[in-house]
């Protein structure tokens, strides 16, 4: 089974779960005055779940033949590409998301930019470090001072 039909199977599962939630779990808690409404919070989701189930079934059963196109990246040979770099960058993004608040904007962003280019194979530290620091500082200044959106610059223990 090709990847697009596997995905259709997953989406069918999503639609079924969504449909279950819409058809069977939402209406019970509806206040009485709302029950006399022609439309319930679950009406639209119910329609959507049916539409979704029909379409995923069409894809899953292959009613609609699609021409096999030359893809940009062949997912069957994912190992041939720089998969390790991509995974490491994704992990870095997750770490950044978790660190942004506790560690503060300035440190986590500089680290993110430096480690990001390090993962991609850059080793020219004399360029990497200044670029990261200047960019971090400039963005922080723009967001904090010009736009007035608060971002904690330093770790919490320094009172940032």
């Amino acid at each position: 089974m090709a990847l697009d039909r596997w995905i259709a199977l997953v989406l069918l599962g999503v639609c079924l779960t969504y449909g279950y939630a819409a058809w069977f779990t939402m209406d019970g808690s509806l206040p009485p005055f709302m029950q006399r409404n022609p439309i319930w919070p679950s009406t639209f989701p119910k329609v959507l779940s049916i539409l979704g189930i029909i379409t995923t079934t069409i894809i899953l059963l292959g009613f609609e033949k699609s021409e096999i196109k030359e893809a940009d990246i062949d997912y069957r040979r994912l190992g041939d590409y720089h998969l390790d770099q991509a995974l490491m960058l994704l992990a870095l993004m997750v770490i950044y998301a978790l660190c942004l608040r506790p560690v503060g904007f300035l440190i986590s962003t500089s680290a993110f930019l430096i480690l990001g280019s390090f993962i991609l194979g850059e080793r020219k530290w004399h360029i990497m470090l200044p670029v990261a620091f200047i960019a971090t500082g400039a963005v922080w200044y723009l967001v904090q001072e010009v736009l007035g959106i608060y971002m904690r610059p330093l770790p919490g223990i320094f009172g940032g």
Partner: protein
Amino acid sequence: MLEGLLIGLQTAFSIQNLLMVIAGCLIGTFIGMLPGLGPMSIIAIMIPVAISMGDPSAALILLAGVYYGAIFGGSTSSILLNAPGVAGTVASSFDGYPMARQGKAGKALTIAAIASFAGGTLGAVLLMVFAPALSSVALLFHSAEYFALMVVGLSAIAAFAGSGQVAKAVIMTVLGLIMATVGEGALFNLPRFTMGIMDLQSGFGFITLAMAMFALPEALFLVLKPKDLKGDDGEIKDLRITKEEAKAIAPVVGRQSVQGFFIGVLPGAGATIASFLGYAVERNIAPKEEQEEFGKGSIKGLAAPETANNAACTGSFVPLLTLGIPGSGTTAILLGALIALNVTPGPRLMLDEPQIFWAVIMSMFIGNLVLLILNLPLIPYIAKVLSVPRNYLIPFILFFTLMGAYIGQNNATELLILVGFGVCATALKFADYPLAPLLIGFILGGMMEDNFARSMQLYDGIGFIWERPMTLGLLVIAALLVLLPSYRARRARARAAGIADGD
């Protein structure tokens, strides 16, 4: 009208107001280029500045300049990085980004600038002529028609998203609509499908989703398979468009200015629908061999959404200025600013304070001209973004993606959602599922459900579909749009298999 024009010219051509236009356009362009900051957030940020000026004309002129600049800046990041910061410029990336990858970034930006200029200017002419008349047309549209119009828009998007892939496009649209139902709706104050997670109470962030669908998979693809971002030698060549190209896009620009403007007039439709519908229409009426080009760097495919979104921005001022009803999020913010300045937009605005009405129209012309003059010479420098080495560019794209999602919501959970959806979107991209319909479904989902619910309540049931001929007609068009391409594909296959056509 002539008198009004003169009043407008007099007001708009004061030194202060000219400076306001220029400043607004510059600020808008530069902030709009950052993915994640759309016109709505930029205008919201500029409101304190505008209000403190005290002069309503100047304030509105400044904000309108910011609006135009932001839309143009947003198309820059769509074209160069495939990271649309604004929903209205998503369609520009369909053909703009492939052009940039072919080394024609300069040309793409030039076309975008010219198309935006033409769309904005023609839109302003139309606004001047039609503003009074159009307000009465817009009043004819009820929520039932809005609902039907959105269904048409979504079907058009699903129909054009891929040849022979209509089912995939439809499921992505439905998925987008499903995601839009997460969180609290406006009509029912009940949290839905939040799975008890507090952060989902307000639904998924639009910007988060946009970043996850477009910027992140694109960046991951760049990591997985390094390719030459720039042209042969990184030089931005052929900025100029040739005479043939100008001839090819001229009718597109003409059609889309008018169409985009009228779509923009309808409250709730706005630049996003205008740009997608413009793209779909131009693709469908293009000759067969040019249709193949769409999505691979067609100049028509870039000019259409660029013209349409700027014309629609102008059009969206019509309901604001004539009815006092904001048609989009951005004009809603403008309405807030006007009320803070003690101006009440509405039918009486043109009579009571004509100088404001006409000054805004005049400043639209000036704003568009300023944008063109500013941007054409700047294009080579803007396009230089592409010659930044990959090792630096990718971390920065990722960083701006994260920042865009973070600034909007100020919530670190949003970043985790972004990464999660980004990975899902990459898998979908591998399997050749179109991603744009998902985002459009998501954007329109909330509005669509609201209008659907409103008409259900007004007609006490589903009856509005057959009781309102306009609604029924629009829905029939929508059904045809989805069914026709798959029917045609089926027939083409049958013909290829050697089965003769019936008479």
